[in-house]
């Protein structure tokens, strides 16, 4: 599997000595391109820790991570510019949309392309295409504070997708949404995964969306167990 996500024997320990917390104790996961998998587990089981390691915002203690065919971590970072890695290879979706309040919708989405050095026009054009796909194009010139929660979340998803990253990490993306909108978001993620061959991990407690996953990883005490999902059509 060249693209997608491979995690092998990943460990993460916070702190040292008496106060040390072993949050991840040998996690193994594989997500193929075009696949959307769920990641569930009780509070404190290490879900966010895993996403942070994958998202290159904290450093694991040991193990291996391969993103989009590139070994980004093998007992140490293999990559110097983690910011550029996040910008070009990873899309993030959070429970709250965290849009930049002083940029309008289209620039919120286009910013990541502009940061990567694309021209403003080209960036906005690609952002607009995605907003159209996500059905929020008519709000492109609005400020984030003028959107509904669901619209904001769709804009956040557009932002995660706009650079066509090989990997998308979503932490509770549907928590604030009703079941209809939650399912709509999952549908978009599944469609995008297909279209751009993106590997997507969705951390969730949300029973409403559980049935949409073909595969679900359970994480308990810092170790993963795979469990087949229902994979129902949405």
């Amino acid at each position: 599997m060249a693209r997608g996500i491979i995690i092998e024997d990943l460990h993460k320990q916070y702190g040292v000595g008496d106060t040390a917390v072993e949050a991840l104790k040998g996690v193994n996961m594989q997500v193929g391109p075009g696949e959307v998998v769920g990641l569930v587990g009780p509070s404190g089981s290490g879900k966010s820790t895993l996403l942070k390691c994958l998202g290159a915002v904290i450093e694991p203690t040991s193990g291996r991570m391969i993103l989009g065919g590139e070994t980004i971590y093998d007992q140490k970072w293999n990559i110097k510019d983690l910011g550029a890695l996040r910008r070009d290879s990873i899309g993030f979706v959070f429970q709250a949309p965290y849009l930049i309040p002083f940029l309008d919708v289209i620039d919120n989405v286009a910013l990541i392309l502009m940061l990567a050095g694309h021209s403003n026009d080209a960036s906005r054009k690609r952002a607009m295409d995605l907003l159209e796909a996500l059905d929020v194009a008519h709000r492109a010139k609005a400020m984030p504070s003028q959107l509904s929660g669901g619209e904001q979340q769709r804009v956040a998803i557009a932002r995660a997708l706009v650079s066509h990253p090989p990997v998308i990490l979503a932490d509770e993306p549907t928590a604030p949404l009703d079941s209809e909108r939650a399912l709509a978001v999952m549908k978009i993620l599944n469609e995008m995964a297909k279209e751009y061959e993106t590997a997507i991990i969705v951390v969730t407690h949300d029973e409403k969306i559980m049935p949409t996953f073909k595969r679900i990883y359970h994480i308990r005490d810092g170790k993963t167990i795979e469990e087949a999902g229902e994979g129902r059509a949405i």
Partner: protein
Amino acid sequence: MISLAGRDIAHSWGKFVFTGIGLGLLIGVTMTMAGVYRGMVDDAKVLLDNSGADLWVVQQGTLGPYAEASSIYDDEYRGILGMAGVDAAANVTYLTSQISQGDLDVRVMVAGIVTTEQGLPGQPRFLVAGRHITRGHYEAVADVKAGFQIGDRVKIRRNQYTVVGLTKRMVSSSGDPMLFIPLKDAQEAQFLKDNDAILNQRRRTAANPAFNNPAVPGLLDAVLASQSVNPFVNAVLVRVKPGFTPEQVAEPIRKWKRLQVYTRAQMESILIEKLIKTAARQIAMFLVILAIVSAAIVAFIIYTLTIGKIREIAVLKLIGTKNRTIAAMIIQQAIGLGLIGFVIGKIAATFWAPVFPKYILLEPSDAVIGFVLIMVICVLASLIAIRAALKVDPAEAIGG
């Protein structure tokens, strides 16, 4: 790439403009303080320029006539006139006086000048209205700032003077408008005692057997007469003939007349380095404090604005925004705030300067220095905010 700072300012422009106005008024006060100092220096220079003198001859060992009391005989000028290189020499007296006239209550510097001939040093150089003093007594020329009109009658000590002319920018080194009167009147005013004091003095003189000696008839009258005139002036102002340097002319006066002689440059340094030194230091202290307060305000505002955006900064970092870009955003905002403040401060100072009672000189060069200082302060003040922003962990955007 879009300007993140510009977009943020455009989004919360109300906050920006209002803090900018607050900062601007503070900057305006700071500029005005600098203007007060410049005004004092300028007043001093104008006082010297407008006297039309190249040399100031004063009592030996004094810094007179403006910074210290100086008293010399009023016939010394004759000897000076006879010396090589002297083009003109004129007595002058200065007396600071509080004048009430109708609603007006003004503090003026009364200058006693020689009026027998036009164009002598010490006389008002140009008039904006009326004429020069032509009579030997009871006429006055006033600076317009004193508020008198031509034809007004002003009372100095016991005498009434008619204002016959108005002049401009003739002020003392402490900014009081000048009022010119004939020398004889001024000497009298300086010397004048009240009637009780005169009677008292006469009685004391008469009681002194050394003065009231029956063997010398007429002695008492002679002594009393000498007591009731004032043969002193404060200085002699000298104009040097073309072809002579002031120092060439000054040296023999010092040597032969045993008087102190100051050149224009020396006089200026006395006024600026001695007379207004404390005031200048006072203003410098204010300037330092105001600069610190402005810096603290900019730092605090930029810091608060940045802390309020921690989440957004975490998100920006998460999606790969470089530290450099984030630091630039904060610095640009600080500079933006400084720019708004500078423009408002400059406008405010220009508008309120004429309302101040003393002359305020807003030098363009000071504005340039102020602008550079504000920019430096803004950049320095944003460093604390930048430090806070760079410490933000992109992991915060993911949350728990």
